[in-house]
């Protein structure tokens, strides 16, 4: 029928909504269908006709559709049985496809059935493999994939890749591919059957790498590399098959936008972590699969046992378990000679290919092959030795998933320890016995690592404990070196939040160094500084201050090279004053630190940006809002010049500045900074990184505040998706992300769902910050706005009052207090108490006016509400300008069907109804 055919999904959705209501009338017998239909369809006669016709058609039960397939005639069923017999797949021998006669099934899978066949042509006999698109699925997607495979095979002419011979469409319309039939066996079985030596296995594997490289150079990613797709013929030639899930890469497509694999390979064992997690796949994903194959060929075992696991479980397993070193894996099977061969280079090569993060692997299959060739030639390989750095990366990456909520914190701590160790090593190497230091530091991580034998997980703290024991036992005769390394460890404990332990170590180290060097020595000052920093973290500000003053005195009197340390001490002092509420002294210290950093030729650069940012925080508290903003602009400029526009630290400063501008109501400036920061983070960290959550949350929040609900949607949903996958329910970022979603729902008519989500956020937040925190007030305010949106004025008033009680006692976020005041005012106005409303709204405007730029819609809304309150009190003259100008400002930035704008329009209309003023 014409009406159906021309119908758009939107029209149908509208009709469906009406049908749902009418069908639900059975549940509310009080309402009669006719009047409800009239109400729902309004005056739209055509719509009503359509709805009635559909209702009639739906309620008829005389037809074919009601009886399912049982109505089919017995003759048809008999015929259907005949059809099933004709096409029974278990008996395919002799069936023909195109010019080929099928012999047997070689394999089956989601992507198609592969048959062994021969040319029916009498002239010459050629065995071929025919791949037929699976029945039961005729999606355009699969057709496309079939054509892609055909294209890929046609383009990939290579002696080691199975050739495409022909292709066509069966009589029933299913496409098929005809490929060279390879008589061979999977590479792993081939190697095991002939008991090939490690060297022979590696030579075969290098060929495999080069074939994969050839595919990559032709912009093809295989995506399903595994032994059963890599056959070796009787002559020992390698053949790569099955490009059924391969895809073409497009150099212009960013990784983030790259298409995702949908169907998981059946064996997760060979899939890269990004494939298992259903993230975009790159050529380095094939490198990972090659790494698994190499592991399998070297050890006859798999790096991870993933049998029977779901993708999520498999992903967790890969992150949490470090593969046993290949040399260790073969030891268990008493192949001690092989173990010796594998130890060192080959262990490192395999593990580099198996890195969890794609960018840590060999960048190409060719590089992997090259490193194996280097190993043959006895030249140093590229893969970094599987000691501290590799172990460290694995350690961090393992803990990154294990501690989901603290994911970012653990990563940051990990980086910090790595940095400290590196610095310590660099500094100490110059003066002291390199070997000894290196051994101690390496020992820290070696003992912590399960693949040296023990299978047990070891926490960072436990690892540090062991390091400490080692220091005590190994370096008793080397007090200076011991003190240096104790300092490193103490800072690492601090990084782990083990402040008591850190404090004790720093304290004893400080005393040790006083004895070694006397009171007036830079190393004493260093320990004093570190002890003070730990005390600040513990909140022991009073104890920290004299230590910092002492350190500052030592550093400034030694002068010259120590100015850098002096600026660090000044920074700590500034932070300490900041924390104790002495903002003007904080600003002075930060200014001094900044002066040193700016003057220093080596210390300048990014360190200046950091102090500018700290100083900004202090002066913001002093009420110098403009200066705070300008300092951040300066910090941003310096960061861009020193570490680059694309640096993550630069992105952090952008975010901080964006938050400032956001709070000032400079939405344009804020939005572009948020977007730039998020873009950098996504590019540098990947779009699935937990560190990007806050940026997405902030940007979503800003767009919501702007009333740009359609623009906000993608960021709000992104933030919720990321946070639900990466962090726990109770985490503040996750709550923030979900509250944005609730707000989006609130403004798009999903008020019941919004209420549920807000309440869930409220209870989680109360757990986190207690019931008195200002943010709890904000939550009540949000709930009240939702009440207003759904017309529950009484509940809204109750919740606004609750919000107000909390927000009045908190000094922070006056802006949110103002929002509550306006909300409460609007409710009071609706309840016929305009006098009281006026008081609240005037208070709100006093907060908004110095803060917000003209044209800000919230400021405008405040004026509209004030106008409304005055109008209701009969003060039409005063109301007139407020309502008119407020409405105009709001209309400039908010959609015409926006709830708030419609409310404002209502008041303007009321103004007009009561006649021209004067």
């Amino acid at each position, binding site marked *: 029928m014409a009406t159906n055919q021309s119908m758009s*999904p939107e029209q149908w959705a509208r009709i469906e909504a009406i049908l749902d209501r009418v069908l639900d009338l059975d549940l509310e017998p009080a309402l009669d269908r006719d009047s409800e239909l009239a109400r729902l369809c309004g005056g739209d006669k055509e719509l009503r006709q359509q709805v009635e016709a559909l209702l009639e058609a739906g309620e008829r039960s005389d037809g074919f559709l009601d009886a399912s397939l049982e109505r089919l005639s017995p003759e048809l069923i008999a015929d*259907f049985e005949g059809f099933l017999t004709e096409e029974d797949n278990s008996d395919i021998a002799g069936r023909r496809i195109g010019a080929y006669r099928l012999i047997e099934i070689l394999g089956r899978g989601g992507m198609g059935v592969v048959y062994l066949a021969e040319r029916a042509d009498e002239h010459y006999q050629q065995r071929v493999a025919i791949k037929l698109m699976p029945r039961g699925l005729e999606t355009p997607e699969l057709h496309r994939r079939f054509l892609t495979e055909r294209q890929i095979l046609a383009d990939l002419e290579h002696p080691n890749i199975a050739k495409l011979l022909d292709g066509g469409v069966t009589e029933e319309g299913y496409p098929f591919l005809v490929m060279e039939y390879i008589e061979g066996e999977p590479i792993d079985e081939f190697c095991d059957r002939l008991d090939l030596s490690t060297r022979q296995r590696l030579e075969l594997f290098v060929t495999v790498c080069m074939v994969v490289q050839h595919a990559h150079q032709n912009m093809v990613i295989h995506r399903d590399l595994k032994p059963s797709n890599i056959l070796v013929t009787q002559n020992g030639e390698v053949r790569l098959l099955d490009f059924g899930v391969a895809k073409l890469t497009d150099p212009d497509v960013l990784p983030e936008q790259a298409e995702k694999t949908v169907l998981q390979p059946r064996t997760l064992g060979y899939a890269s972590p990004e494939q298992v997690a259903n993230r975009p796949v790159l050529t380095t994903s094939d490198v990972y699969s090659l790494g698994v194959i190499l592991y399998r060929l070297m050890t006859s075992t798999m790096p991870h046992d993933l049998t029977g696991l779901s993708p999520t479980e498999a992903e967790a397993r890969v992150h949490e378990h470090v593969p046993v070193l290949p040399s260790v894996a073969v030891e268990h099977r008493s192949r001690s000679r092989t173990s010796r061969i594998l130890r060192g280079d080959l262990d490192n090569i395999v593990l580099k290919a198996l890195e969890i993060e794609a960018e840590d692997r060999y960048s190409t299959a060719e590089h992997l092959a090259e490193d194996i060739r280097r190993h043959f030639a006895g030249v140093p390989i590229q893969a970094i030795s599987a000691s501290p750095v590799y172990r460290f990366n694995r350690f961090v990456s393992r803990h990154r998933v294990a501690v989901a909520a603290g994911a970012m914190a653990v990563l940051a701590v990990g980086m910090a320890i790595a940095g400290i160790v590196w610095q310590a090593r660099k500094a100490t190497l110059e003066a002291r016995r390199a070997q000894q230091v290196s051994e101690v530091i390496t020992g820290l991580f070696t003992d912590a690592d399960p693949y040296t034998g023990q299978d047990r997980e070891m926490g960072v703290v436990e690892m540090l404990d062991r390091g400490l024991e080692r220091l005590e036992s190994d370096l008793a005769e080397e007090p200076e070196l011991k003190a240096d390394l104790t300092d490193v460890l103490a800072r690492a404990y601090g990084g782990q939040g083990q402040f008591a332990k850190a404090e004790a170590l720093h304290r004893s180290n400080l005393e040790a160094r006083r004895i070694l060097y006397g009171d007036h020595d830079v190393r004493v000052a260093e320990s004093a500084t570190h002890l003070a920093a730990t005390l600040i973290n513990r909140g022991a500000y009073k104890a920290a201050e004299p230590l910092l003053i002492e350190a500052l005195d030592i550093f400034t009197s030694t002068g010259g090279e120590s100015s850098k340390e002096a600026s660090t001490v000044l920074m700590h002092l500034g932070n300490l004053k900041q924390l104790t509420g002495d903002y003007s002294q904080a600003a002075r210290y930060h200014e001094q630190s900044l002066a040193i950093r700016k003057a220093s030729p080596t210390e300048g650069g990014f360190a200046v940006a950091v102090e500018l940012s700290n100083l900004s925080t202090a002066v913001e508290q002093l009420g110098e809002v403009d200066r705070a903003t300008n300092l951040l602009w300066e910090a941003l400029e310096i960061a861009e010049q020193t570490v680059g526009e694309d640096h993550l630290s630069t992105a952090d400063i952008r975010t901080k500045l964006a938050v400032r501008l956001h709070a000032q109501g400079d939405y344009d400036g804020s939005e572009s900074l948020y977007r730039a920061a998020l873009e950098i983070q996504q590019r540098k960290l990947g779009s699935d990184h937990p560190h990007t959550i806050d940026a997405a949350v902030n940007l979503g929040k800003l767009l919501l505040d702007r009333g740009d609900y359609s623009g906000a949607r993608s960021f709000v949903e992104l933030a919720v998706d990321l946070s639900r996958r990466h962090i726990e329910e109770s985490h503040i970022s996750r709550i923030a992300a979900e509250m944005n979603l609730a707000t989006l729902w609130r403004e798009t008519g999903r008020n019941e769902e919004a209420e549920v989500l807000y309440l869930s956020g409220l209870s989680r937040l109360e757990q986190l910050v207690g019931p008195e925190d200002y943010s709890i007030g904000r939550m009540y305010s949000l709930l009240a706005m939702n009440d207003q949106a759904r017309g529950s004025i009484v509940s809204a008033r109750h919740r606004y009052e609750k919000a107000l009680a909390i927000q009045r006692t908190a000094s922070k976020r006056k802006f949110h207090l103002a929002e509550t005041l306006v909300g409460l005012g609007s409710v009071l106005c609706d309840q016929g108490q305009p006098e009281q409303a006026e008081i609240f709204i005037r208070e709100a405007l006093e907060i908004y006016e110095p803060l917000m730029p003209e044209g800000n819609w919230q400021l405008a809304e405040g004026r509209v509400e004030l106008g409304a309150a005055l109008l209701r009190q009969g003060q039409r003259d005063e109301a007139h300008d407020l309502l008119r100008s407020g409405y105009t400002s709001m209309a400039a930035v908010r959609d015409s069907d926006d709830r708030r704008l419609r409310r404002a329009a209502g008041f303007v209309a009321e103004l007009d109804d009561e006649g021209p003023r004067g």
Partner: protein
Amino acid sequence: MPRDEITEFLIAHREGDAEAFEQLVPLVYEDLRAIAHVQLSKLRPGKTLNTTALVHEAYLKLVDQTRVEINDRAHFFALAARAMRHIIIDYARSRSAVKRGGGVIPVPLDSVQIAILEQVDGLLAIDEALDKLSQLNDRLTRVFECRFFAGLTEEETAEALTLSLRTVQRDWMKGKAWLRHELAL
């Protein structure tokens, strides 16, 4: 396909989306077809096609019940419904192709064949209309498949598609209404 493999797939795709669903259908297709074949060959002439029994039998044969969760079971029924639709429609297409001659000279048809062809055309029309309906609201199509092609009850359909019973009832009604309207039945 061996039972373990289908079970593995169901477990592996617990978190799958609509596209993944589409791609899993062929895994069930061939086995369901084979089971249908066996079931029909046991029937005396004149019996009707009992798809309800068919998909339940397929579930028992193809899925290792000790390893799956309730959701996997439901997921399987939704898959089987779609696969059943494909099997029936493949049959209908093959017969429709015969009628059109399939490129060969058309053969005269007897009255039984004509009666079959009328039903075949009806099935093909339903299939085509369902494709259109899925453009408007895919959920209605899925509900229709479960009820019509797999013969699932309203309760079973609700479970298979993780919908409320009330939604299934409304969707079934709306789907039929749309199809009758579309097909002028």
